[in-house]
């Protein structure tokens, strides 16, 4: 991370000045600038050093670790610093008074935390928590700043990004997996047999890895999407947007790059094909949505640029009838566009929380929105207002167990057979929200599926509530309905990628 400050002149600070003898190169991995004019640096010798910005002299040096210090973050009050190191440990430095009631203060290394096995590449300091990110993201509340013990005082760990990394071509039964630098296209296997609940059915066709698409250059893939019909595939990196035409000839699959893709202002934060695979919506970082028309046999043209969002658009939801498009921008405003006449339709009342997923109901054109604080809202696009069910849900409030979940809803879909069903999932659970059933209150059990199974039919009816939750698949990356009878679920066992990680930094542990 870098901190920008307009300097009147360039002051060069030689950080490795004192360790030249060591003959190791010192790399400054992170710096921060305090309002007092002190530059804080974190270097590969594991030091956190405080420099006078104008003189370039060293004020204090703290060796926090024997391995490299990689990241730095300063609290808003500038009385605490969090440092991430390559051993996966984070350290807190605090500005503490030397004497009780005295004015002199000194930076003191206080608490060490070890929540990561590998590099801590990024850290952040919120008023009440230390946030560190490496292979996982950890939010460590500072107990002394948390007012009451409870949900806020719990350490939270996130292994998966709160974004959709899998897209599904329902009609073609294809799945597109997005990795950091490549894409994989798979054809789902199928079975012709039926069985009872919990039974594993034999496959008549094995799942098939169709193609692997490597992105060019060192850039990470930002977003990707496969069209519902399975013939179009697009992805975007930080600088470029790519569109491919997928051709299935027999068993083989060939990818052909679509030429003359309109030059878009990069980067694209989200790609979404329309339900009929006729057009592609590209959410841009500049707050606009580009509508591209896809042409047979392999071309495209820019149809329209929908404006109105003041910040980058990061989520898109087209309606099944191709009439509406909902776009969420970085300021958490949800804009709804009319695609028939390319007009801005309305803005959903802004809520003070990030939108984690949204989808438009295929038959009612109700927009279902999930917020990161686990609130759920249903907004009628044609009527430009919250639905009655949504108001009832708001007034009654959601179940406490639902609200205290760690992981936000990342995908919403609907059951074509039953319009009252909304299917939601996060990393740890899959939920069928049945609008026709009563809402649960805090006294009832939220996850009651297993208890319901043991009850007789009549008693079961009385106990039913709207949230039908399944925790069978963990960690759950993706869930979608292929057709009326078929649900696809993507699990990603943690061990799968833990084994692929490089060895952690060697550390001598006493007694081993």
């Amino acid at each position, binding site marked *: 991370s870098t901190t920008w400050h307009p300097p009147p002149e360039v002051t060069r600070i030689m950080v490795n000045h004192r360790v030249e003898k060591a003959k190791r190169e010192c790399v400054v991995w992170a710096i921060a600038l305090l309002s007092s004019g002190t530059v804080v640096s974190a270097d590969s010798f594991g030091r956190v050093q405080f420099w006078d910005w104008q003189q370039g002299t060293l004020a204090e040096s703290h060796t926090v670790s*024997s391995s490299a210090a990689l990241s730095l973050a300063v609290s808003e009050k500038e009385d605490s610093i969090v440092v991430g190191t390559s051993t996966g440990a984070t350290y807190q430095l605090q500005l503490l008074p*030397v*004497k*009780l009631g005295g004015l002199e203060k000194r930076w003191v290394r206080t*608490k060490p935390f070890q929540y990561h096995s590998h590099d801590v590449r990024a850290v952040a300091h919120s008023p009440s928590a230390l946030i560190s990110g490496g292979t996982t993201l950890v939010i460590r509340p500072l107990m002394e700043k948390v007012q009451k013990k409870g949900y806020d005082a719990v350490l939270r760990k996130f292994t998966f990004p709160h974004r959709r990394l899998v897209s599904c071509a329902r009609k073609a039964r294809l799945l597109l997996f997005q990795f950091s630098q490549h894409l994989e296209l798979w054809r789902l296997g199928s079975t012709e047999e039926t069985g009872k609940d919990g039974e594993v059915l034999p496959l008549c066709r094995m799942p098939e890895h169709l193609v692997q698409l490597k992105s060019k250059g060192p850039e990470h893939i930002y977003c990707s999407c496969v069209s519902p019909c399975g013939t179009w595939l697009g992805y975007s990196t930080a600088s470029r947007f790519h569109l491919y035409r997928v051709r299935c000839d027999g068993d083989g699959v060939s990818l052909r790059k679509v030429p003359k893709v309109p030059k878009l202002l990069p980067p694209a934060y989200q790609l979404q094909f329309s339900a009929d695979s006729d057009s592609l919506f590209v959410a841009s970082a500049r707050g606009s949505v580009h509508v591209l028309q896809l042409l047979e046999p392999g071309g495209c043209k820019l149809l329209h640029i929908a404006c109105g969002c003041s910040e980058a658009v990061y989520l898109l939801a087209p309606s099944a009838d191709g009439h509406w498009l909902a776009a969420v921008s970085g300021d958490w405003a949800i804009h709804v566009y009319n695609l028939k006449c390319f007009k801005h339709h309305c803005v959903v009342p802004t809520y003070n929380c990030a939108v984690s997923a949204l989808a438009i109901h295929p038959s009612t054109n109700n927009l279902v929105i999930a917020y990161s604080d686990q609130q759920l809202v249903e907004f009628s696009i044609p009527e430009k207002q919250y639905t009655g069910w949504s108001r009832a849900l708001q007034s009654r409030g959601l179940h406490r167990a639902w609200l205290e979940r760690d992981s936000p809803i990342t995908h919403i879909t609907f059951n074509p057979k039953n319009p009252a069903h909304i299917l939601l999932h996060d990393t740890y659970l899959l939920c069928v929200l049945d609008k026709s059933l009563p809402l649960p209150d805090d006294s009832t059990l939220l996850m009651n599926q297993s208890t319901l199974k043991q009850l007789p039919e009549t008693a079961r009816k009385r106990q039913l509530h709207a949230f039908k939750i399944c925790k069978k698949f963990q960690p759950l990356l993706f869930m979608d309905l292929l057709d009326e009878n078929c649900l696809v679920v993507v699990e990603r066992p943690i061990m799968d990628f833990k084994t692929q990680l490089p060895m952690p930094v060697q550390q001598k542990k006493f007694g081993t």
Partner: protein
Amino acid sequence: KMGRRSAPRACGGSALRRVFPLRYLLCASGDFVKVYSVSTEETLRLMGGHADLVTGIQLNPHNHMQLYSSSLDGTIKLWDFMDGIPIKTFTVGSKLLALYAPASAEDSVFVVIPKKGERDTFQLVSVKLAKGAGQDLEAKELSVVLDGVGASMKHIAFGREGEYVVSVKDVNLQVYFFKRKLLNRFSLSTLKTKGGDNNFSCVVCHPTEDCIATGHADGKIRLWRNFHHRKEYTYSTLHWHHDIVMDLAFSVEGTRLLSGGVESVLVQWHNESSCQKDFLPRLGSPIEYISMSSDGALCCTLHTDNRITIINSNLRFSRSIQGLIKSRDVKTGLVVDPRTKALVLNGEPGHLQFYSLQSDQQLFSLDIVQRQYIHQAGLKQSDLVKVAFSARGTWLATVEESEEVTDPELQLKLWFYNEETQSFKLNTRINSPHDNHITDMCFRDMNELEEDSLILVTTGRDCVFKVWVMVEDTDPEGNVSWSCDFVGSYHNYQATNCCFSEDGSLLAVSFEETVTVWDSLTWDLKCTFCHPPGNIRNICFGRQTCSKYLIGATDYGFLCCWNLLTCALEWSAHLNVVVLQPDPLSEHIAAVSWLSKESSLFVFKPNEPRPIYIQRNLCKEKILLAAFVPRDEPEIISSEKYYWLRRSQLFFLTDTQELMTLSTKSLEERLTPSSKQLAVEESLPVTPFSLLLGKHRRQQAQEDTELGKPVVHNKQEQASPAVKELLHTPAHVLPSASFLCTIFINSLLISKENKSAEEIADEVEVESEKAEDDSDEEDVTEMEQEDTSHTELLGEMTCKLSKSQEKELRKIRKTDYSWISAF
């Protein structure tokens, strides 16, 4: 009264704390406070007066020449440690477990006392030290500062400028701020996960900052800051020790923190950073206490084996002060080295220590096991278990075994004393001399006139005794080595003890319930004795006129004396004998019994069943070992009762490893010489003052030669009487400085009148003679009375002073100054 038990000479494990004022090291040791010279390691003074264990010593923060000490006897004493004089005694009443004297407290000190009515609950109280005229004062003005504190002095520390006090106990830390009257409590988790144990072991405070360092049972050190906030307190952790942190100490500036523990490594942490640390390893034994000198130039560590190590500020070993090393277990028994008359017993792990009783110092330490000792609990390591010397000390036999119970790894080593190198050299090593533990070992104790007569006998639990003899090697150099000559057994009983008769012709070996007597020439079994029921615990032959008797003690509480000529029991007595020790220089045998929590001593001659000396309730501790140490010259003993102690001195070692001796003199007699010691002028370090003094002395000596007098080499004579007076008079009876100043200055001037110098010299001589005369009859109580009378006398004199001060001083001097020399 005569014959009181002497105080422990050396003791380990009691509360000890050292304070450095400049160049003295003060240490609480048993009931005494010892004063060592840092530069020479000598014990300068032994300050006695407390009736029980001294639990804390602290320099008087307002006068660094004075020392406070607290004791379990309920008193706080203020000492002038330069002269070893108790200045004041404050009686508090209840047991005092720790003492603190922060500089901020004007006229009070802090002590830890047991809480009334509650067992094992202690409180920190401040004691107001009354300002009275007398020497013995009551200190009844107590106010409780903290409740529920730990009983150890390491559990409480006073913060920067005495603003707060910290106490740790179990997993709780409490800080009390005196000015704000605020008490903060912090607790750590009691869960012991991943080998962690948060229990506090010690606490110290940073000298200049608000920072508390605590040591923990799992080896962690925590540095607490911001502890005036109940919520926003914070701490950082330093972790190197793998076991409990025994003590911590900050440097004077607070930039360095020293820690020590079981590892016997002193760790120095810089700037509270876990990455910058230095080590001083191989300190020999676990560190118990760490102390810093007031100027920061030295630090010292006190070890569990009763040794003090002095360490430079750059973490270099400087010197060590060691008396009797406390070992984990004295398995070798108390053995006297015939050569040096030193007491020989287990020392450092795997070492044999030679302890000089005269100088209270270790002569040397002999590495027997010769293996690296790892300071970690629960490891089975080899240790020395048996040791024996030949009569003239030329041969030393040692047995070492590993701590495995079932299959001990045994080694018998024979060492020959090399006159050139003045040390023992390994001659023969015998692996597995017995198949099971060796129970006893002895040399044939003839005066080694013929080398052939030297044989060694070992007895083992493998039911045999073995005889080892020297054989000449085949190599041309004609070296000797030891090999087994005879293996004897008796009905497959375990052999437990062995000993030779004085002339070496007979060997007695006890096999469980039976004592067998063997001819040492032919190895024929001569006769057997037993006194069922009960196994034989100890056996010994009578000596000199009583050499026809064999004494044995059974574990059924019988002491038996068998006549070897008649092969019959001569007499037996019902006595639970723990120790049976014959005096090598007389026919006396000492037996120590242990019954109902007290040890008693019986001294008898085998030819008379009546003991010649009985001392019941010798001490409360169990006496495990005893040894007669021959005196250099037979002592003239007036009392008939102690006649048996004429040629040897008897020493005991208790289960707490206190070494005791039986004194023939009364307590008063013994205390007198120590209180008569003069000022520390001989061991004074080189300071400007001592240079001035030295110059002065030289001058005087020169004057003497000029006068045509022979130079007297007595230092006392050389010093000017005025200066001597100044130095030798206890501080609390000296007249005011302004009064003494002129005399002192005058004495420094080069006198033109030779006559006056002569006069002074004469006078001093007369005085010193007189003093000697007096001191013989003097005892402590009388002396104290004299002290007070002189103070009054001096007070009157100062009122009258108006004319020539020098004349006045003469008058004073002519009165009576005999008591001065007493100090």
